[in-house]
């Protein structure tokens, strides 16, 4: 490795949030004229590392060396001054302003009090021409597609004479042609000697656009090499680590009988397509795919949180399987997401109030007011059944541990007696014993006849409980594996490169 060629080095970067280590001596090396992919599963620490480079958060330890000189970056503004630009997944466009104004907004070229509009337009045109596009600089940004807006964002980075450009999931909302255009832009930037850092969940993209790959896991950098030294299966293996077998909680069962829910041809343009599957009663089905594969989107579409553009969802009501609208299905389903603070519980309320919320109708007395006694009885029953560790039903949920908060979420939905649970990373951020408790609970639900569709980034976790796996990639179910499938088979299944770049539509 030639040290003089190296443009960017991050060494020994550590960062803890509220005492929990997000990064433990992570490192990154990237060179001008190359694109370096940074890969890692949910929570591996790649966003934290990039936020440190972009000046969004400060590191606790470690150093950043840019062009051979140690650099201090304490704010996004400082990062820009040092030549580090961050193209966020959420674009920072100002829709009612023009293209030129958006590119120059933080330092509008002026002579006297007035902006030099023509000069600004000329420079904008030149910057956009470098990106191979010819959007008129007077166009209002709100009239542009997301793909075009992203180019404006890149043009803004170029205006700051960026030496390093971080792309955070740049293709997640682009159409196929827009994606190809972005790749051409990145290729152009590489010829200009810019250091490209490329973050994505799409494996195929890194093999078509990146020269180097860095893989992170649990806050550490576990691999760094030219892309030619790895293949997709290797990258997945590095991202997920060696699957330690913690032992199954329940041996896979082969569910028989009629399906509880059957989905055919489910489609949401640009997100999901051709989704067909069935789940039987008492079955735990793992939805296995990388982040960004459409797994969360599938759960949301099923219960109408996102609109669908086609397909049928059929639900067993009594003896027949009849089509049902997603919004109606929501009433039969317990949905638990990783964002328990945002979507799961009301932190300032008590356990009792939280559990009562989705069940208020069944707690009314003859005056149509809430029957305190029944609410308390319900809360006590759930605390007992789920073994929630709390001083009592009146304890405020904010003061509970993460695992017990998640149990409260389960309790809320259990009382509505749903027949299907959709679980999206239900153990995210919990410690090992709490994770095991939640997984035991999932098995218990299945034993009682509930069906479960489970999403998890941790393969080990899925392998402890699932009876069957659906493999999802780019919004499509690409494979199905039995519960007996081993870790290598499951990893291999998502490492297949999907050459068909269009997600849907």
């Amino acid at each position: 490795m030639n040290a003089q060629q190296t443009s960017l080095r991050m060494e020994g970067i550590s960062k803890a949030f509220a005492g929990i280590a997000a990064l433990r001596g992570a490192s990154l090396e990237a060179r001008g004229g190359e694109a370096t992919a940074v890969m890692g599963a949910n929570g591996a620490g790649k966003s934290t590392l990039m936020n440190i480079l972009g000046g969004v958060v400060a590191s606790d330890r470690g150093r950043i060396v840019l062009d051979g000189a140690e650099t201090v970056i304490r704010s996004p503004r400082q990062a820009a001054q040092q030549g580090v630009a961050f193209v966020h997944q959420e674009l920072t466009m100002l829709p009612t302003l023009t293209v030129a104004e958006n590119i120059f907004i933080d330092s509008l070229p002026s002579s006297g009090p007035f902006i030099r509009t023509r000069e600004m337009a000329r420079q904008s045109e030149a910057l956009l021409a470098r990106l191979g596009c010819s959007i008129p600089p007077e166009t209002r940004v709100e009239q542009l597609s997301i793909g075009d807006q992203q180019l404006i964002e890149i043009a803004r980075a170029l205006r700051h004479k960026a030496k390093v450009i971080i792309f955070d999931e740049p293709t997640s909302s682009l159409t196929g042609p827009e994606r190809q255009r972005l790749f051409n832009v990145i290729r152009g930037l590489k010829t200009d000697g810019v250091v490209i850092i490329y973050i994505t969940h799409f494996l195929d993209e890194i093999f078509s656009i990146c020269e180097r790959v860095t893989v992170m896991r649990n806050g550490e950098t576990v691999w760094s090499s030219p892309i030619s030294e790895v293949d997709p299966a290797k990258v997945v293996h590095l991202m997920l680590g060696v699957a330690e077998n913690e032992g199954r909680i329940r041996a896979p069962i082969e569910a028989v009988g009629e399906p509880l829910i059957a989905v055919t041809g489910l489609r949401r343009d640009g997100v999901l397509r051709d989704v067909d599957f069935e789940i039987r009663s008492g079955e735990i089905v793992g939805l296995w795919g990388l982040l960004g594969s459409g797994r969360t989107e599938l759960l949301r579409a099923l219960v109408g949180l996102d609109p669908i553009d086609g397909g049928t969802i059929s639900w067993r009501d009594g003896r027949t399987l009849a089509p049902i609208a997603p919004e109606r299905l929501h009433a039969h389903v317990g949905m638990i997401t990783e964002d328990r603070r945002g979507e799961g519980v009301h932190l300032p309320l008590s356990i009792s109030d939280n559990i009562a919320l989705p069940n208020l109708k069944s707690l009314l007395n003859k005056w149509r007011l809430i029957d305190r006694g029944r609410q308390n009885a319900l809360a006590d029953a759930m605390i007992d059944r789920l073994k929630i560790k709390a001083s009592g039903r009146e304890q405020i949920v904010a003061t509970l541990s993460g695992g017990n908060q998640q149990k409260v979420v389960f309790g809320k939905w259990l009382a509505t007696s749903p027949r299907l649970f959709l679980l999206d990373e239900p153990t995210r951020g919990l410690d090992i014993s709490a994770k095991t408790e939640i997984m035991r609970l999932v098995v218990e639900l299945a034993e009682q006849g509930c069906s479960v569709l489970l999403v998890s980034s941790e393969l080990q976790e899925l392998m402890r409980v699932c009876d069957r796996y659906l493999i999802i990639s780019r919004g499509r179910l690409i494979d199905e594996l039995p519960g007996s499938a081993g870790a290598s088979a499951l990893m291999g299944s998502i490492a297949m490169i999907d050459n068909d770049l269009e997600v849907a539509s």
Partner: protein
Amino acid sequence: MTARGKTSDFPLQHGFFVVFAIIFIFFSLATQHFFQLDNILNIFSAMDPLAITASGLALVVMSGRLDISVGSTAFLSCAIGALLMNQGELNPVLAAIIVVCCGALLGAVNGFIVVVLKVNSLIATLSTMIAYRGMALALTDALLVQLPPPIRFLGNTRLGPIPLDIFVMLVVLVLVHLLQTKTAFGRQIMAMGNDIAVARKVGLPVDRIGFFSFVLAGALASVGGILTTIQNGAVSPFLGSGLEFTALAVVVVGGISLLGGRGAILFSIIPGAFIFEMIRDGLTNLGADPYSYRLIGGAVIFAAMYADALKSGRYSMRRRL
């Protein structure tokens, strides 16, 4: 790129001008005096204080905030000026300068409360609206403060057939318009009105920009107050009372979105102010019940707000796509 300005958008995009034309034609046909040069000039002259005050308020609205203290700011700053002239025998020009400085200072207080103390702008300016008016009433003992005789007649000055204050209004509005559309400060106000979080992320000094938008709103409110005072020859205890809401209505009716980030001063404020003054004038000419003005004004505000809500609904749909 998506195409805009389809024919189906026409009534929505130009609804204001349709309403404007209908009202204008109605008054022209229904009354004898309405459609005469003198009367039209009268409307323009009468709307001047409103238009100038609204232009300052518009800057705050474009930044995504509100300032409902402008009426009280006009009253308090003019009361101070008039008292200084009467009791301190101050030179009128100097008094005018002091009035504008007072307005800027009162605006700065608003800016401080909103930007530094981080109080919601509606609540902050609601409290100063009440407080400023209270201070002014205490200073004037809630009595009429007459201007000294030579200035009292300034209100009738004309340049040829055109009242002088129309020129004052045009100059002020053009300056504010240039500030908003052609300077970095103006564009950064618009950027802030788009999304203050994004503007901050991009590195704009949103606190400073927000503060100065309030200072300007205060200063321009006091300029509007000076014109009212000169037109009336006195500072009345009702100066600027209700002005904040009429000014806000002018801003919105003219097409400046309350959500911020949209609109241009000159093309919004002049038609917006004109329509309100035109309705008042037309109803007077009709000999209508003086209170009917409020009902019709309210209906116009509602129609404008509803069109704004429809429009911004469409914009946000477009943004999501």
